[in-house]
């Protein structure tokens, strides 16, 4: 998916940097995104409390929050920084596994599980950000397709390392090996066992933790977007040469977006890992990276709240289609295609645009009138 580059006449890098353009649009976007998350949380919690929502949907609360966070953080790279990354699941994996190891260590020192969860998520984020930094430094000089290929390779490398990684813990400390034939000490507890992954994880994740993760991710990404830094990142995205000409350090700004995005993905991974009792490396295959990218594309590249809705819906959709039994995956594909056609159809678009325009102008009119009355 290639992002359409629209060069708007007044959006010169200098004006963008000053924040003179689109200030109110940022506010509106932030408002909608926060509102979706908070209202969604409220409704779902209420539904669960009243018993309207079944086990199936309740079981997906945490994954939804995780995928929403992943979509938001990937949007920072794909939408705001304008680079195509196909390795988001790799960062998620790094965060997930390091989070699991950290949580197991913390279990001996801290008794409060929510604190364990929080610290392990922060640790997962840090390790993933470090991975992002290490991978980002050499490759962010690449552009377009090349970056996509390298990130794809990164995701596969992470998964393959996880396939042969053995991690154990005993009274002397941590032990790890890259081959199961090197035995970990017999009395050590295995945390990660190669292709089987981590088993016996204590499930600490909750919907509330999930929504906090999503809100935190949103807060970080929106603030970056609406900062001088973010405007510089977008200026480089829109016109690299112009950006460089006014002295923006292209690599530095791109790297910031990449590393923050990686860290946030790691945090989401750490929460995801602690929602299940087991975690296998196969989960973080290329397919998962693409799935997250689909959330972003379907929600509109660069559109944060669009990504939130897309992530939530596409997580629920395959489950909601379970009643179609054998035709479930077929139906899922058809629905995806229909949504794509509908959202990018010019006729539907224009009619919708007209409707929305009518409504918004009416609201504006009313606001003006009431404003005058107050004045």
């Amino acid at each position, binding site marked *: 998916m290639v992002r359409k580059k629209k060069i708007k006449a007044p959006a010169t890098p200098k004006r963008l940097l000053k924040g003179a353009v689109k200030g109110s649009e940022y506010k509106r976007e932030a408002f909608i995104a926060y509102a979706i998350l908070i209202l969604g949380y409220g409704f779902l919690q209420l539904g669960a409390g009243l018993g309207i929502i079944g086990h199936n949907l309740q079981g997906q609360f945490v*994954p939804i929050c995780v995928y929403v966070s992943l979509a938001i953080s990937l949007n920072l790279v794909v939408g705001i920084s304008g680079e195509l990354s196909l390795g988001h699941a790799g960062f998620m994996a790094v965060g997930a596994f390091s989070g699991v190891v950290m949580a197991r260590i913390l279990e001996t020192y801290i008794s409060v599980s929510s604190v364990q969860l929080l610290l392990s998520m922060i640790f997962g984020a840090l390790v993933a950000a470090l991975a992002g930094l290490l991978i980002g430094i050499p490759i962010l000089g690449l552009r377009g397709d090349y970056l996509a290929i390298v990130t794809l390779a990164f995701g596969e490398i992470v998964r393959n390392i996880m396939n042969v990684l053995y991690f154990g813990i005993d009274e002397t400390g941590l032990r790890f090996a890259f*081959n199961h034939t090197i035995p970990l000490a017999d009395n050590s507890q295995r945390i990660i066992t190669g292709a*089987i992954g981590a088993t016996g994880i204590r499930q600490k994740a909750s919907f509330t933790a999930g929504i906090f993760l999503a809100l935190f991710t949103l807060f970080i990404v929106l603030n970056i977007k609406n900062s001088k830094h973010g405007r510089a990142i977008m200026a480089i995205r829109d016109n690299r040469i112009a950006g460089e000409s006014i002295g923006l350090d292209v690599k530095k700004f791109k790297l910031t977006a990449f590393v923050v995005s990686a860290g946030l993905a790691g945090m989401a991974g750490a929460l995801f890992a602690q929602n*299940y009792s087991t975690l296998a490396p196969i989960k973080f295959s290329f397919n998962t990276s693409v799935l997250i990218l689909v959330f972003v594309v379907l*929600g*509109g590249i660069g559109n944060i709240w669009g990504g939130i809705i897309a992530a939530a*819906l596409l997580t629920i959709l395959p489950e909601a289609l379970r009643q179609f039994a054998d035709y479930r995956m077929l139906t899922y594909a058809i629905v995806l295609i229909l949504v794509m056609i509908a959202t990018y159809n010019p006729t539907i*678009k224009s009619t919708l*645009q007209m409707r*929305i325009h009518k409504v918004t102008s009416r609201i504006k009119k009313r606001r003006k009138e009431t404003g005058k009355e107050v004045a």
Partner: protein
Amino acid sequence: MRKKWMKVALASASCVMAMALAGCGGGTTSDGNSLKVGVIGPLTGPAAIYGEAVKNGAQLAADEINASEPKFNVEIMAQDDEHDAEKSVNAYNKLRDEGMQVLVGTTTTAPGTAVGAEAYKDRVFALTPSASGPAVIEGNDNVFQLCFSDPNQGVAVADYMAKNYPDAKVGVIYNNADNYSSGIYDKFKSTWEGKGKQIYATEAFSDDANADFTAQLNSMKNAGVDMVFLPIYYTPASNIMTQANKMDYKPTYFGVDGMDGILALEGFDTDLAEGVLLLTPFTAYSEDETSQKFVKAYEKAYGDTPIQFAADAYDCVYAVYNAFDKSGASVEDDAATICEAMIKTFTGDFTYSGLTGQNMKWNKAGEVDKTPKVCVIQDGKYIEK
């Protein structure tokens, strides 16, 4: 630009939400006198062959039970998990919404580990037909396995060899990138050496290099190995047999359940598999009367020869049915009550004889105790030894 399709997104959003909510309240079509048994397995994706077999095997058993005018019926509810832990938990929760009372699942190990933990929390009794990893039952007092666990296959083979081939010079070729294979090998090695025996040569390979086994076979040959233990799947095993034949090396091969399927492999000269010994709980070519009956019924119902997974699931449903009958629980009880009654029965003096073993018993950890079946391939058929 973005505003335009926002409405569409919202509209489709509300659509899907409505569907999701509708799905949640979805009632079950039950006659009030049936035990609701949930089945979870990969019905789509690359592992679908296993999930389909489990679903069909379970359904066949339920149909037979229901046709025999029982005290209560058995209703099978199957859900797809795509061989993915996350999806499997979703499938499990969906089954709970539908009123599942006992779980026969999951089919594969990784999802089984995740679902096992959930079933433990929710107190739903689970008997897995084929999730053989030890992590599935670990720490879960209400999750039981009908199949041998991976390590126990290694023990069974070592015991069998020590008894029947005490003088064999044993060598092993295994896949060290595969947990199934290395799990069996580890346990085989410790059991075999625990008996004061020696492994004359050990060679490993990985999934990336499973075509050329000349080096491994030379090592076996040079060490004078006359019995090669292959705790691997049938495709690499077929390569080993073909290449050994070319270099005029003719040891006896010993396989485990992953060897099941070698006779159906395209392009493989089945003559080479003559005399291969393998540990397998079930074979469709068995002369055994109950097996024959099952194979015929399965072929009639699904037009396909049943694999081991189908037999495992068939046994699971019958074992659950018999145990439930014995436990004194009622089909009107909730899952948690049934769970406690079933645990008591399963860990008590309950035994079950079926397609995949005679006098199966379960210990508190959830492992099955049954006599392993060893078959030998003769004239292109499995003959029980």
